[in-house]
């Protein structure tokens, strides 16, 4: 691919954005019609307990209550990807808030009365809400895992002994990162519409084809069919995969033969939602005196929560991905994923790398200090470069990592020059730097393939429909696909309709995760456009138009003569050079890789420990920028989620496993008043493999943030932060014990 286009500036086509700003977007809950049966669940108040008996009679006696489902209704069905371990309704509650019984009622008041009337007896079991407790708990959470360890990973690369001998300086540390909720603004909402034997699942998930695949198999057992309809999605950040609520609604809809819906209140969404995996990371990095990074060792424990979801994949990624940033000689990583009685974890923007970056990028900083080398210079000397094959098997195509480092160095120096250090007894200022890398898609995710399909179909009304299983979650996918096709076919954007994620019509797609949508979907859109143009020139000749007639003319004529059905094409993209990774994660898992370097300036109040990020710079190699505003949006948004992870957000669980802060007020998601000025810098990289030279930008911005802030705090105060979130109290305490 070498189809060089001039960079696209400003909004390409902002149809979705304008609709949304007018309040016209429709999310799942907005599509629930009056009279729809409402569903709710009774949740376990215990972190670990066996359900001994369930009395549903008092609930069923309440007028308006239509049906009740218990664990027995879902025998043999478990959710999970690829390992299945999560029941729909459970016989053994493994976290506070797990669904035990579900109720359907004609209205919300009856629903609440029904749930409150249920009698559920539990036998309370010993529980463990930390990895350490789970490893010593004599009670396994899942019978198949007697020691509560779900998975162990080992990744050894290079000649460790030889490398070790060359090391003159080691730095090491133990780091603790926390679970945080995704805290998307739209709570989980599920609507199931019944159309004869067809169940239509309407829910904001960015993996509609994957959901359809999983659920079709299950509902086939009930004699039903299933399609997924994807409405607007109010944020997800990795959370909205398969979920018990879907199956509960599907089962009720099938049983009652009518539409049912369930919208989680925010509190329930947080206690029964998903979180980022908390991790404890022991790491050491060794270098030579002249600043060559030689060896890195990682020992990592990850808190899976009660069920697996993508925990194994995230854990492996956390153990190895960040290694690919530098030219190490030898690597040794061990990771264990452990079941606990916490909220089930799930992938979350960054896929484990924000956790490991917090450790690695602080240690690199410490090394720089020990070796007397500027931290940016140390990174530059060891930076991975275009053409490298890393120890983990990544074949690095385009690479703008050093360009990112140069860019932030220049910005930081200019800022320091303009703001000479002020002598102030109360406030300390400091600068920090950190870097990150990320893949695009993940060949390891689906063993069958990693590809995207996108169809262009001319509708009878003359609109050109883009249909794909690659969806829009606010990154601008609709606009991007629309823009690519419009540009390629020289069509007005107004003549194009975009339908994403309705599984009845669109071709299969893996969905929006792993920063893959723009890249994979974009390539498929290019391919589809090419094929569609070809179909147009064939038809042109047949109907007597000049072969070079514009696409618009061909379309108009096809509509006039009733030959629209001949104009359709399905484009595809499946990278050739990616490889399925082995057990230890070795392989070229992505068609391209992204890089980034961040810097920030912090102000710390040493009296209260309060940290203010005064300025933030984020330099990214995302290939060619397709839309500057969109790319900035991803970077600024990602940095702010990262700042929340770094400084404020956490899921706090008490001794009984109960979430202490279910809600935005106590989770402390950043507000307008907490916004930090972020300056975005994009490198001039062009990725041959990408659509119009692009790579991806959704996940990379969150990765370096916590480390970057931690390094700045160290620069300002001399204290090292090993634990997230770095709350004012923690910082104040470290100033008193260390400083």
């Amino acid at each position, binding site marked *: 691919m070498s189809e060089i286009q001039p960079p696209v500036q400003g909004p390409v086509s902002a149809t979705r954005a304008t609709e949304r700003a007018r309040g016209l977007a429709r999310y799942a809950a907005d599509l629930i019609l009056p009279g729809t049966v409402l569903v*709710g*669940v*009774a*949740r*376990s*108040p*215990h972190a670990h*307990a066996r359900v*001994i008996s369930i009395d549903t009679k008092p609930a069923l006696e309440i007028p308006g209550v239509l049906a009740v489902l218990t664990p027995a209704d879902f025998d043999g069905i478990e959710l999970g990807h690829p390992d299945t371990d999560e029941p729909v309704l459970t016989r053994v509650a493994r976290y*506070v*808030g797990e669904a035990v019984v579900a109720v359907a009622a004609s209205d*919300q*008041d009856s*629903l*609440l009365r029904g*749930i*409150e009337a*249920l*009698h*559920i*007896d*539990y*036998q*309370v*079991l010993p529980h463990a809400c930390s990895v350490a407790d789970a490893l010593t708990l004599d009670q396994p959470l899942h019978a198949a895992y007697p020691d509560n360890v779900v998975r162990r990973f080992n990744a050894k690369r290079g000649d460790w002994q030889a490398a070790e001998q060359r090391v003159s300086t080691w730095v090491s540390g133990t780091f603790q990162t926390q679970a945080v909720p995704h805290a998307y603004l739209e709570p989980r909402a599920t609507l199931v519409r019944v159309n004869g034997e067809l169940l239509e699942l309407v829910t904001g998930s960015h993996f509609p084809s994957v959901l359809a695949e999983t659920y079709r198999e299950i509902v086939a057992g009930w004699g039903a069919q299933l399609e997924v309809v994807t409405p607007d999605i109010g944020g997800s950040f990795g959370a909205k995969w398969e979920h018990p609520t879907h199956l509960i609604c599907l089962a009720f809809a099938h049983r009652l033969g009518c539409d049912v819906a369930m919208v*989680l*209140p*925010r*509190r*329930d969404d947080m*206690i029964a939602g998903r979180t980022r995996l908390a991790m404890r990371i022991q790491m050491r990095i060794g270098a030579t005196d002249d600043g060559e990074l030689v060896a890195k060792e990682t020992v990592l424990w990850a808190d899976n929560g009660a069920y697996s979801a993508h925990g194994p994949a995230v854990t492996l990624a956390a153990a190895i991905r960040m290694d690919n940033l530098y030219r190490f000689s030898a690597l040794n990583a061990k990771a264990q994923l452990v079941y606990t009685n916490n909220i089930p974890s799930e992938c979350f923007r960054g896929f484990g790398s924000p956790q490991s970056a917090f450790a690695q990028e602080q240690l690199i900083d410490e090394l720089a200090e020990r070796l007397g080398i500027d931290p940016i210079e140390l990174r530059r000397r060891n930076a991975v470069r275009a053409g490298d094959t890393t120890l983990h098997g990544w074949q690095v195509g385009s690479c703008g990592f050093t360009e990112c480092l140069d860019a932030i160095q220049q910005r930081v120096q200019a800022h320091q020059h303009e703001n000479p250090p002020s002598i102030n007894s109360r406030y300390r200022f400091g600068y920090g730097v950190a870097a990150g890398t990320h893949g695009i898609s993940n060949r390891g995710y689906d063993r069958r393939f990693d590809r995207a399909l996108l169809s262009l179909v001319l509708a009878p009304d003359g609109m050109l429909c883009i249909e794909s299983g690659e969806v829009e979650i606010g990154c601008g996918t609709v606009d991007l696909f629309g823009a690519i096709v419009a540009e390629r076919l020289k069509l007005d954007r107004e003549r194009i309709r975009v339908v994403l994620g309705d599984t009845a019509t669109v071709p299969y797609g893996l969905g929006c995760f792993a920063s893959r949508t723009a890249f994979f979907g974009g390539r498929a859109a290019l391919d589809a456009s090419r094929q569609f143009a070809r179909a147009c020139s064939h038809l042109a000749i047949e109907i007597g138009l000049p072969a070079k007639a514009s696409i618009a003319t061909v379309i108009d004529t096809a509509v006039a003569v009733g030959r629209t059905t001949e104009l359709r094409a399905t484009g595809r993209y499946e990278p050739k050079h990616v490889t399925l990774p082995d057990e230890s994660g070795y392989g070229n898992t992505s068609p391209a890789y992204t890089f980034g370097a961040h810097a920030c300036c912090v102000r710390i109040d040493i*009296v*209260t420990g*309060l940290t203010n990020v005064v300025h933030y710079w984020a330099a990214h190699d995302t290939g060619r920028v397709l839309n500057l505003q969109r790319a900035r949006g991803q970077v600024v948004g990602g940095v702010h989620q990262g700042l929340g992870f770094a*400084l*404020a957000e956490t899921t*706090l669980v*008490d001794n009984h496993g109960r979430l*202490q*802060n279910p809600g935005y*007020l*106590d989770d*402390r998601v*950043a*507000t*307008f*008043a*907490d916004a930090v000025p972020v300056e975005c810098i994009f490198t001039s990289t062009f990725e041959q493999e990408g659509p119009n030279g692009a790579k991806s930008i959704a996940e990379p911005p969150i990765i370096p943030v916590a480390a970057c802030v931690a390094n700045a705090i160290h620069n300002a105060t001399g204290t090292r932060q090993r634990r997230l979130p770095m*709350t*004012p*109290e923690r910082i*104040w*305490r470290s100033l008193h014990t260390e400083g």
Partner: protein
Amino acid sequence: MMPTVSPVLRPSYLPPVELHRPNDLGELFACVAAGACPLAGGTDLVVWASQRGEPRQLAWTGGIDEWHIVDISGQQVRIGAAVPLSRIARSGELRSLISAVIEGASVVGSVQLRNQATLVGNVCTASPGGDTLPGLYVHDAMVDVVNAAGSRRSIKISEFICAPGKTNLAPGELVAGVTVRGLGPLEGSAFCRFTQRNALDLALASVAARVRFESDEQTVAQASIALGAVGPTVLDAGQAAALLVGRTLEPTQLRECANLAAECCQPITDHRASADYRRQLVRALTEEIVLAAAKQVTAGCASVEAS
């Protein structure tokens, strides 16, 4: 192990609520006598009802016309039970008369919440971290309590609030409003809280101070300090304030006062912060806020001279 029967963890939907909307006090008292819980802005009550499933019978106080009145007569300010925080927070006159209260009212929640939430609601919620409370303490607030028989009693706020979430309100009684003593000549007051977020957060600690100077504008004639979120109720740090009287606000004086304030508070350790960190915050905030209160006097005088 013994099986245990446990209550069901219910979804936090608002349960069916029976809402009464009385238009006069008699009707309101009748509703309350029949078991309805008074509802002002609902910014606490509706959240609790959703979380806990009760109360389910509410009587809205917004229909009582006389409770919408803000009355300023001389140094006295009376704020009716249905007055939203935004109304008092926007008043320039109140800002200079009862600064500490207004500064507290201005940081509650958000623009939207302040349009709904009332001052009296904040008082009746009786949270140790209620942001208007330290200001009300240093402004010697009296809570006007009425009952169905029409009898009134006026209670010092420090006696009205007796424990976290608990007031001295007897069954059948309601709060009609709050009366506060505004600032006199040579007096200033201020409020400040510490939160992790820059907005929409609950205080980890808060402090209000009121200072009156001698005519030299340097020597403290009278002082009071109230501490929020560091005890079961807002605390009157009278001893700490007393340290300032008869002295000028030198750094050592201030530090001594702040240290004593930190010593006399009774913070708890919870998921938001530990006790000793809250003490540290009290220390930091007290110094700051005494100075801010004092500055109001000096700055205020400067503007009088200028005009």
